């Protein structure tokens, strides 16, 4: 297997050709395009002079420090954070490193999810310690190599800025000069790490390493891959899941200029062409017919009806306190409500795409994927090639949000490429991206609580009905139907609730598949739990902040962010008529967040979110500016779902397609967002999804404050 060094930016040569190619240069471009590597793959012969003590660091004789990125960069800033963690212990400067996406490999398995996958806001939690140890290991060996060369005690040497210095004599050797001798040393089993007081990089704002090439068009995403001899593919896909191709007009498609071939799959037809313009014209000419199959009868009303039926059945309990029913029945005041959250698409800006070249003895896959090892495995399975004959070339992701952990589009690209005698780049249209998404599940929740005479909750029951994508993806993690994600943020509440029952009833919709959607279980449970908590406060005639405060005595970190957010937002200060403030809190991904939304509801029902104040405790921050950016990002992502996000089904088909029907928040609707970070030395928690859950209930609660209307269904309508 070739371990190609994938550059993540346009190679200088291609940039040069692009800048200089003039009339008549098209042929030159096509022929001269080099492989995408900025430099050739390191041959095994080079290994003797290259120092590579672990899977994450490679230092060559020239002193080039390559860091291999275990997790993928999809906007969350992980490349910079992982680099900071390694560089901190390796004693190098961030401008000294070059980055490579990791190939599929055991060393890159995310210990939280037990798979090589970037998801669940887990990258820092899974890899912070490993990165620091990797850096410290390399530094220890480089220092030992220098000490041996100088015949001095290692304790008399120190490493800084990529150089080992003998302190008393001032002698210096760069890491490049030490690489070959360090490579011969045994890898120490244990290394010592810095104490937080010694940090030079961790916790201080660092400029992101991936962004300079993202403002000039040089950064390469999966969709930007150019392979010599490559063709492009556009597809017609059966609009109903499980349906098959019944017929199509191949001749009409082949008559289009630039079209080379038409390829049939079970559920799709691909048109292979020189460029996407021609391929799309070819697809438009296909006139495909489909056998839609049984899912063609399913629509949204049927999905809802099934969920309503499911909600009547007892589920698998995550928590079931013995006398919860009797306490609830005997409570001074009882409240109950049903909450509804529809299917939502992910809609990353970069639509699904994958480039594949299948040859007799090998297969190359070029893409941006949250799960590169899954891509490798499916390509091997489909082609019948051994795993090591499949090379996955990783690129930047133009957004992922969970969608790019699935490999349906990789499967399709490999199936197409198996029938084409050239590399093929498959790109879905925006409409296909929406209509063939693995959606955020449709959920229906029934929640009830009993309050005592003082308004304190004494019993709480919560039944959740919906799809279990965990059961599809990780069947071994499901015991007796218990889905740990479905109840995350529902059963493990920070509030002191004496008697609880939380249960899950699995109900699959049939006509669509579901998967992780940014903020997963905590994201959907926050809307229900935090909205209902507001209902309880209102029923108890108490202020929502004060009411939560009384219940958060056991969670000082959550209580602290609640107070901080309320304080920074000016909680309690009067707002103009028609405006209201709402608050929500959540502990998720081993972090803590509180958000206050200031919302105006116009007489025509238009909801305008003016300001969102966030208080965050995510433990030790690696790059504080990235934490702030991720919270801002999560707020906008969640707000899109709160205000507009809904996928509906008719005749088994997703009704929405492009951004006109699947609406998202735009510049003129984006609130001002403040993020206040709590300084903490606790273990780092996740932040990539942390901003998303609370914005939905915070806005709903603000609407209640402004209008008295309780929102129990998404997207919000007043």
């Amino acid at each position, binding site marked *: 297997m070739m371990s190609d060094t994938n550059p993540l930016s346009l190679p200088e040569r291609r940039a040069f050709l692009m*800048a200089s190619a003039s009339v008549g240069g098209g042929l030159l471009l096509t022929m001269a395009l080099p492989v995408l590597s900025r430099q050739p793959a390191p041959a095994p012969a080079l290994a003797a002079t290259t120092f590579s003590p672990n899977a994450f660091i490679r230092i060559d004789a020239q002193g080039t420090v390559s860091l291999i990125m275990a997790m993928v960069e999809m906007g969350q800033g992980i490349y910079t954070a992982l680099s900071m963690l390694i560089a901190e212990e390796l004693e190098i400067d961030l401008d000294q490193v070059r980055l490579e996406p990791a190939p599929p490999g055991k060393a890159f398995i995310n210990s939280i999810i037990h798979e090589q996958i970037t998801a669940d806001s887990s990258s820092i939690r899974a890899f912070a310690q490993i990165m620091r140890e990797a850096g410290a290991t390399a530094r220890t060996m480089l220092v030992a190599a220098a000490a041996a060369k100088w015949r001095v005690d290692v304790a008399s040497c120190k490493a800084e800025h990529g150089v080992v210095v003998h302190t008393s004599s001032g002698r210096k050797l760069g890491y490049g000069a030490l690489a070959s001798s360090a490579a011969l040393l045994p890898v120490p089993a244990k290394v010592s790490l810095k104490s937080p007081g010694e940090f030079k990089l961790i916790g201080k704002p660092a400029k992101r390493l991936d962004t300079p090439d*993202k403002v*000039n068009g040089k950064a390469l995403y999966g969709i930007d891959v150019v392979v010599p001899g490559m063709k492009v593919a556009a597809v017609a896909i059966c609009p109903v899941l499980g349906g098959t191709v019944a017929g199509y007009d191949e001749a009409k498609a082949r008559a289009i200029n630039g079209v080379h071939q038409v390829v049939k799959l079970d559920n799709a037809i691909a048109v292979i062409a020189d460029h996407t313009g*021609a391929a799309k014209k070819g697809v438009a000419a296909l006139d495909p017919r489909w056998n839609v199959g049984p899912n063609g009868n399913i629509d949204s009303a049927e999905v809802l009806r099934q969920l309503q039926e499911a909600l009547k059945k007892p589920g698998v309990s995550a928590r079931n306190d013995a006398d919860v029913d009797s306490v609830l029945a005997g409570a001074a005041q009882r409240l109950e409500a049903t909450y509804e959250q529809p299917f939502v698409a992910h809609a*990353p*800006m970069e639509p699904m795409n994958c480039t594949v070249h299948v040859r007799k003895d090998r297969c190359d896959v070029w893409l941006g994927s949250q799960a590169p090892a899954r891509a490798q495995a499916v390509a091997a399975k489909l082609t019948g090639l051994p795993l090591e004959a499949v090379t996955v070339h990783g690129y930047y992701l133009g957004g992922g949000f969970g969608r790019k952990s699935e490999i349906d589009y990789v499967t399709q690209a490999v199936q197409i490429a198996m029938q084409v005698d050239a590399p093929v780049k498959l790109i879905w249209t925006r409409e296909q991206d929406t209509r063939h998404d693995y959606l955020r599940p449709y959920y229906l929740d029934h929640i009830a609580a009993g309050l005592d005479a003082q308004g304190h909750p004494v019993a709480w029951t919560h039944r959740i009905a919906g799809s279990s994508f965990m059961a599809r993806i990780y069947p071994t993690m499901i015991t007796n139907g218990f889905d740990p994600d479905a109840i995350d943020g529902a059963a493990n509440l920070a509030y002191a609730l004496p008697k609880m029952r939380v249960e899950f009833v699995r109900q699959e919709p049939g006509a669509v598949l579901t998967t992780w959607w940014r903020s997963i279980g905590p994201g959907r449970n926050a809307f229900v739990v935090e909205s209902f908590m507001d209902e309880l406060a209102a029923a108890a005639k108490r202020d929502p902040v004060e009411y939560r405060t009384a219940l958060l005595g056991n969670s000082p970190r959550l209580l602290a962010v609640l107070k901080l957010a309320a304080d920074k937002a000016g909680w309690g200060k009067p707002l103009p008529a028609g405006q209201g403030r709402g608050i929500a809190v959540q502990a998720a991904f081993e972090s803590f967040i509180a958000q206050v939304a200031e919302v105006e509801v116009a007489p025509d029902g238009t909801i305008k979110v003016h300001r969102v104040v966030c208080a965050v405790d995510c433990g030790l921050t690696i790059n504080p500016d990235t934490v702030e*950016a991720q919270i801002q990002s999560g707020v906008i992502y969640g707000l899109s779902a709160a205000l507009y996000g809904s996928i509906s089904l008719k005749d088994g088909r997703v009704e929405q397609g492009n951004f006109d029907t699947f609406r998202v928040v735009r510049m003129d609707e984006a609130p001002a967002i403040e993020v206040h970070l709590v300084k903490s030395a606790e273990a780092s928690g996740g932040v990539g999804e942390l901003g998303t859950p609370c914005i939905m209930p915070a806005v709903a609660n603000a609407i209640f404050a402004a209008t008295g209307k309780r929102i129990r269904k998404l997207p919000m309508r007043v």
Partner: protein
Amino acid sequence: MPFTLNINGTDHAVDVDGDTPLLWVLRDVLHMTGTKFGCGAALCGACTVHIDGGPRRSCVTPVASVGKSAITTIESIGRSAAGERLQKAWLTLEVVQCGYCQSGQIMSAAALLAKIPRPSDDDIDAAMSGNICRCGTYGRIRAAIHRAAGASEGA
């Protein structure tokens, strides 16, 4: 059909149907991949280029409609003073997350500054609301446009 396109100051010969969107000529024929595909229907702005200085969605611009007009893409926007200031402001304020939409954002912002050197928030809303960012970088984009505009005043 053969066309000669003037892109970033250089003529390029291509041979495609006249109704081929400019986006795919840039990306698939000329391999200038900085201009992105997001929606194919002028709904997201990821494919924004300048044609004779004005912002245009290349995904719905037939190549035959371009004629001899000057096309500017993200690859050369840094050659203009405003483009360079915007790129700098984008990095200073760390606007970028996944970055996929940012070529289009910067092209729309550069066209805005060419027309209105000191845009108000309303001007920014009007010029930038056609550009979707799913990472939600809107607040930082707004700040970066103001910053780049402010820098122009001092220059």
